């Protein structure tokens, strides 16, 4: 499977990673090489096989739906690039 430049551009956009136009051809080539490697999986007969979910069968643990943590606004905001008045600040989202 060969990935074209348009697909590379679309994937970069979906992944929210800015890729300069000049780097798209190289990126498309790398994707093609990796996907070519992955294509081998088509040789395997997977009819009737359930996708693997866990090493030993176990139900995901559930806990009581109660508040067990909180009141840590300062700690939560401590590493934020821009925190103001107890909130994470970001560029304007709504017009």
């Amino acid at each position: 499977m060969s990935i074209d430049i348009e697909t590379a551009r679309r994937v970069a956009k979906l992944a929210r990673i800015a890729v300069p136009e000049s780097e798209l051809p190289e990126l498309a080539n790398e994707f093609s090489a990796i996907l070519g490697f992955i294509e081998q999986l088509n040789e395997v007969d997977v009819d009737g096989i359930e996708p693997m979910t866990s090493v030993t069968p176990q139900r995901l643990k559930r806990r009581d739906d109660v508040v067990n943590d909180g009141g840590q606004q300062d700690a939560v905001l401590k590493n934020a690039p821009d925190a103001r008045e107890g909130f994470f600040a970001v560029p304007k989202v709504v017009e």
Partner: protein
Amino acid sequence: MSELSKLKISEARDALKKGEVTSVELTQACLSEIEKADALGAFVHKTPDVAMDMAKAADANKAGGDLNGIPLGIKDLFCTKGVASQAASGILEGFKPEYESTVTTQLFADGAVMLGKLNMDEFAMGSSNETSVYGNAVNPWKRGNDAAQLTPGGSSGGSASAVAADLCLGATGTDTGGSIRQPAAFTGITGIKPTYGRVSRWGVVAFASSLDQAGPMTKDVRDSAIMLKAMSGHDPKDSTSADLAVPDFEAALTGDIRGKTIGIPKEYRMDGMPEEISKLWDDGTTMLKDAGATIKDISLPHTQYALPAYYVIAPAEASSNLARYDGVRFGHRAKLEAGDGITEMYEKTRAEGFGNEVKRRVMIGTYVLSAGFYDAYYNRARKVRALIKRDFENVFADGVDAILTPATPSSAFELGAMKDADPVQMYLNDVFTVTTNLAGLPGIAVPAGLDKNGLPLGLQLIGRPWEEGDLLNTAYALEQSLQFVAKPNRWW
């Protein structure tokens, strides 16, 4: 004084208990070695003050566990409260967690001393420690008198380099496709990836959540047993953590493997395998047989599909896990131009913060999960994963207790050697290790010998789920037969 950093964990523990040495002395010895070893690029955030405080506390505490007073290095992937934890990525520049990972919490509760944070591939994505934002970690081993700098392997390259060079007594690593075992093999040390779910992932920066497991990297099998016990156990904060008792792994080390059955998988004898590795594997097989084990030829027919399945599943999970690095809650945010909105903030932040290998994997993951491709790639890979797991279940059901394989397809290669290679060439490093991550099984790399250039080579043992004690004992028996004692010549 410098001799103290060469001690094994078990030796230091016993000396501490007898009062022959103090943790302060051990810690000072390691800190002094670390100061002289910047050329190895192993320790990327040094924490001497934290270390000395912890050492003094350990010396005052007569009730600590096996690791009381033992100086360790911690991979940068583990969140350590108030200490930089960057996963070797630019996007976590300046990040100092407000919390402590479960693994480091348990190690410190046992009395362990943290010397600092260790280099690694960015977000644990790499096999050579060359994708780190800090620069390369370097292997203390060299090819004879050749000055070329070699990779310590990856992603736990800093951990491997630090343990092999005696900068610390042991280190934490993490293993998603071979990131403990491949670097252990490249540097002549021991490293175990436990069964998935044995060690809590809470507070370990996530790469591929269904594959990631932390484990110890140490100077011998006994030390791995000691450290693994302290790292293991159920954690309600990790929903995939197993609610199983943790056995005393060290007590399992009897060296008696009579009556055990060791499987030798024919699919691991790859075309073009170097003669030395093939011979080492045969020698290891003979040693286990001489120790009383039964050797059985086995087949794991889906082995060749492990790497391609891994390179769908791991990037898919990474693309999801790494979505959190958006410049809002922690780490780097790009400087914005007038008129830039939130989408530009995400795109520029991630373009600046992530390195090339991470970007590549996030985008591959995005692609295989995108509409129209999810079934063809992601679900198919998960089904192949089930078949790989079934291969192992079949041989275990046939009475096999452990499987012996080479750890890596080559010895350590030169830093920079893969610079112009196709990314897939680098991925092939994990060909022998990645199957156990997919199947969730425990695997251990043990140093086995030197190649013609004087570089270490390792053997891998793969065990039954949750039977790390038995696996460690088989590794211990192999270690006793191999008698690997070589050390790198100091050049740093």
